[in-house]
Every structure is written in structure tokens, then in C-alpha cells.
């Protein structure tokens, strides 16, 4: 088997999602290469070369690859990918955007969001918002998959670098352009990388009230998340959303506050190690997955919790 992982990075450093994806690839028996496509991305390439257990890094550097536009990345990755038996990308918005495009260019039916590798051709993946787990098998000679990052422990970054080969980029297709980006800035850990997450739902009633969660997050070094209802109500930005169609998280501790526990929300957090729910409705479905449930009004419970930490 020959495995290729397409790296997610910001041209300076490798994203944690890449390390989880490499870890998934290493479950297969074979040499694993990492493909880094970007612009002035030498730093990211050097960091990728230090991921432990990999065979080599391939780098393609071009100004049109700066923002990981799917058209350009898939076009540049296709020839390389066709020389492998397995191509893995993280199941983040980066990977979800590129992976199917790349697969279609190579006439491959890909496998989304794998959570377990049974063997080189057999994988487990959640379906129906995680209500069921499907085991799928394919006889395709090239297997392209996206990897649920929370399902695989990250590969380590070591000191020694492996061999790097550079390839020239293909000409830009010039059909899409990057215009701009509004990235959330926060001193708190990223949701997908945090050990502890405290999330608020519609029960928070307003964006201002999220400060009740932030005070606790600061004390615990936690990230702050939200349900879709909280995002839709404009309490917090979209990148806070945890769930089937938001971020998938699996921290050591997940505290759900004023969240009812709809299946679409559970899909994003029920693999957390310890789940706490604070809700004033004792019948809220969130209590069915909570290790510790507190039936209380959040407006009294949260200040008390903050003062006890």
C-alpha cells in the first residue's frame, strides 16, 4: 500500500487535523507521503517533514495555491494522487471541499468521514447524524477518504526531517478567486483541539450572556462552543457551532449549558470523554448522554460554578 495525506496548513504551520489524518494513514501497512500545496509555504513544508513515521514530503508552491481553492488544489493533486493506493484528507471544511472534487477527477467514489479502519479496503463511518455506524468496503484500486480527526490520536512532530521533493505547480485554472477571510480571533484554544469545551444553547438567551460561559472557560482553559440555535439567533459566530453540520469535537470534558440535546447537536459531541449538562428541564434529552446532569437555572448555576473553580 502507498498512502498519501494531503496536508491542511496555513502556509506557516501544519494544522492539527493533518496530524490526525497521518495517524489514520499509519494504521495501514505501507509508506506514507505528505503532500503540501501552498504559497511561500516552506515553513509548513519543513514542519510536515518532521511528522514522525512518514516517508517523504512532496511540496508544490505557487501563488494560486495560497488559499487552498478546491479547483487549484484538486487539479494539482490529481496526477500525484493517482500514483497511490490510498489518499486521505482531514474531514474538516478544508478536506470536505477538496476531497470529492479530487475523487471525481480520478473517477473514484470516495468515503467520507471514516472513524475506523478495519483493513485497507474496509472502513467504518457514521451515517444519519451518527445514529448509525456503517461498515463499507470497496474494491476500487485507489481509495480516497476523509478522516474524522477526533477518531484518531495525532501523530507526533519529531526533530529530524524526511526527504522533501518539490514539484512545479500547474497553471492556474483562473475560474475562482479568493476575495477575503474573516477568521475568528481568540486567545482560547480552538474548538477541535480543546481539552475542555463549554457550549451554550438557546437557553443562554443572548450573546451578552455568553460572558457567563467565557468566565468559566478562562478559568478552565476551555474553548467556547454553541448549538445551532445559539448561532442562528446571532448570539455567537458560525464557527462556534458543534454538531452534525458544524464541528465534531471529542474533548475530555464537554459542558452543555441550555442545550436541549437534539440529535444533530449530539452528533458533534457525544464522543466526548465526560459530558456535563446544565439544563432547567429535567426531561431534556441531553441528560441521556450526560455523565453528570445538573437540573438548574443556568443564570444561577453558572456564576456559582465560576466562583467554585
Amino acid at each position, binding site marked *: 500500500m502507498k498512502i498519501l495525506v494531503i496536508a491542511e496548513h496555513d502556509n506557516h504551520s501544519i494544522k492539527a487535523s493533518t496530524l490526525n489524518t497521518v495517524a489514520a494513514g499509519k494504521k495501514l501497512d505501507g509508506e506514507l507521503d505528505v503532500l503540501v500545496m501552498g504559497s511561500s509555504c516552506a515553513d509548513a513544508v519543513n514542519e510536515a517533514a518532521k511528522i514522525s513515521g512518514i516517508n517523504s514530503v512532496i511540496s508544490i508552491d505557487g501563488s494560486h495555491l495560497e488559499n487552498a481553492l478546491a479547483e487549484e488544489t484538486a487539479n494539482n493533486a490529481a496526477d500525484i494522487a493517482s500514483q497511490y493506493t490510498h489518499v486521505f484528507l482531514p474531514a474538516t471544511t478544508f478536506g470536505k471541499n477538496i476531497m470529492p472534487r479530487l475523487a471525481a477527477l480520478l473517477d473514484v467514489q470516495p468515503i467520507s468521514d471514516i472513524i475506523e479502519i478495519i483493513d485497507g479496503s474496509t472502513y467504518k463511518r457514521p451515517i444519519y*447524524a451518527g445514529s448509525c*455506524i456503517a461498515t463499507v468496503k470497496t474494491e476500487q484500486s485507489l481509495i480516497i477518504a476523509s478522516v474524522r480527526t477526533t477518531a484518531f490520536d495525532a501523530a507526533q512532530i519529531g526533530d529530524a526531517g524526511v526527504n522533501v521533493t518539490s514539484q512545479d505547480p500547474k497553471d492556474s485554472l483562473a475560474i475562482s478567486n479568493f476575495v477575503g477571510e474573516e477568521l475568528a480571533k481568540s486567545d482560547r484554544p480552538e474548538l477541535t483541539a480543546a481539552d475542555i469545551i463549554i457550549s451554550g444553547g438557546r437557553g443562554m438567551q443572548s450573546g451578552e450572556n455568553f460572558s457567563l460561559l467565557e468566565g468559566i472557560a478562562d478559568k478552565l482553559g476551555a474553548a467556547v462552543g454553541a448549538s445551532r440555535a445559539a448561532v442562528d439567533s446571532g448570539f455567537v459566530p458560525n464557527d462556534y457551532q458543534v454538531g452534525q*453540520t458544524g464541528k465534531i469535537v471529542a474533548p475530555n470534558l464537554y459542558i452543555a449549558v441550555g442545550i436541549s440535546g437534539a440529535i444533530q447537536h449530539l452528533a458533534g459531541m457525544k464522543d466526548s470523554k465526560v459530558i456535563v449538562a446544565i439544563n432547567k428541564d429535567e426531561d431534556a434529552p441531553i441528560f441521556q448522554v450526560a455523565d453528570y446532569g445538573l437540573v438548574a437555572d443556568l443564570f444561577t448555576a453558572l456564576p456559582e460554578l465560576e466562583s467554585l473553580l
Partner: protein
Amino acid sequence: MKVIVPIKRVVDYNVKVRPLNDESGVDLNNVKMSINPFCEIAVEEAVRLKEAGSATEIVAVTVGSQASQEQLRTALALGADRAVLLETNDNVEPLGIAKLLAKLCEEEKPDLIILGKQAIDGDNNQTGQMLAALLGFPQATFASELKINDGVATVTREIDGGLQTIAVNLPAIVTTDLRLNEPRYASLPNIMKAKKKELNVIDASSLGIDFVSRLTTLKVELPPSRDAGVKVESVEELVDKLKNEAKVI
């Protein structure tokens, strides 16, 4: 501007599905079926483009069995002008669906194709990107805002770190995220009118496209269940348990 909206008939999002007893698939007996929520958002966006004067015709398309005529009628009631059913009883995977849709698009020559970002049954999140590759069109996935101007679609995308804006040349593919819009309800008069709109049924196997499945589902099972937890009586007890029992803080 002609807009094609591929839609999918799926289990309603309120239904909690379970595996069949023999674990050969999911139990779909007598469950409520609906139009995939992301496809509903796609139809709504097309209708808004038409109301704003930039779209001239909206064609809703689905690959599926006779039963999916129901969802096409829903799309017509929401404002699509006509509908096409590429009929098959097979379970077609995203690559096959994308190939069938690509074939139809070669004939229909749309300027814009709006799909849902994901169908909530298989949670694949693949078809739009694959269709874009097959047609050689640019793609703007996970859209939360869409503007059309002078042959260019400017799209704000929901990405993990926040929002990204890209500009793609038409013809293009857009896939919808939840916050692109809030779909309207079909009014009774519009539901009546939809019954008279054109719904063209084409036998999918007549199109000369190979849409045979490449994946085999060996098993469908429940995810590992969580042990039942406990209710704590106070915040103090909660903090104590987290510190001393679970040892997570």
C-alpha cells in the same frame, strides 16, 4: 440565468433511525420522508434569485424512485418552474449521481447549480464538489451568502476558522450551508399550482451513464452507547465529581 437545483428525498430530520435487526441497513419502514433540509435551502435561494430578477428559470432535479416525485412537487410549490426525475430504483452513490446530473446539465446548460452541502441520510457532503469536477466548473461550497453580478458569483463560505469569501466565474456550483437563508413555507395556492407544473420523468438507465455502486455496505450498527450518568444535586457536588471522580478539571 438558468438555475438547476438538485434535491434529494431523505428521512425527515426529526426521525431517529435505527439499524435493521439483521444489521443489513437502516430501518426505513414507515418513516416520514422529506426534502433534504439543505436542498430546501437551495431551492429557496434559487427562488430569491428569481424574485430579485437575476434568475429566469429554476429546474429542480432528483435522481431517485417514483416516490421522490413528492419532493419535486414540494420544490415546485416553493417556486421551481419545472422538475426532472431521473428515475431509478437503485441506490446511487454521489459519483453516480454527479455523473447523471452532469449529463443533464450538458443538455440544460445552466448558469448556476445550487445543491445542498450534504444529504442528512448518508452525510456524504460530496455530490456538489464531484459535479463541479465533472463539468469543470468552479465550486463555492458551504455558502452562507451568495451574490451574482456580471457573470461572477461572490460567495461567503462557512469554514472552520470563520468565514471566507470567494468569487467564482459562472457557470458555477454552489452548495448551501444552514444560514444561507430560511426557507419559506409553501402556500396552499402554490401547492395547488405545483400540481400543474411540468414534471418530466426520464429513465436514468437510458442516459448511457455507468452509475453502478462502488461501495458495499457490509453492516449498519448502533454506535457504542454511553453508560447512563447521574444527576447531581448542586453545583458544589458537580465540581467535586469533576475534580475527584472524573478527574477532568
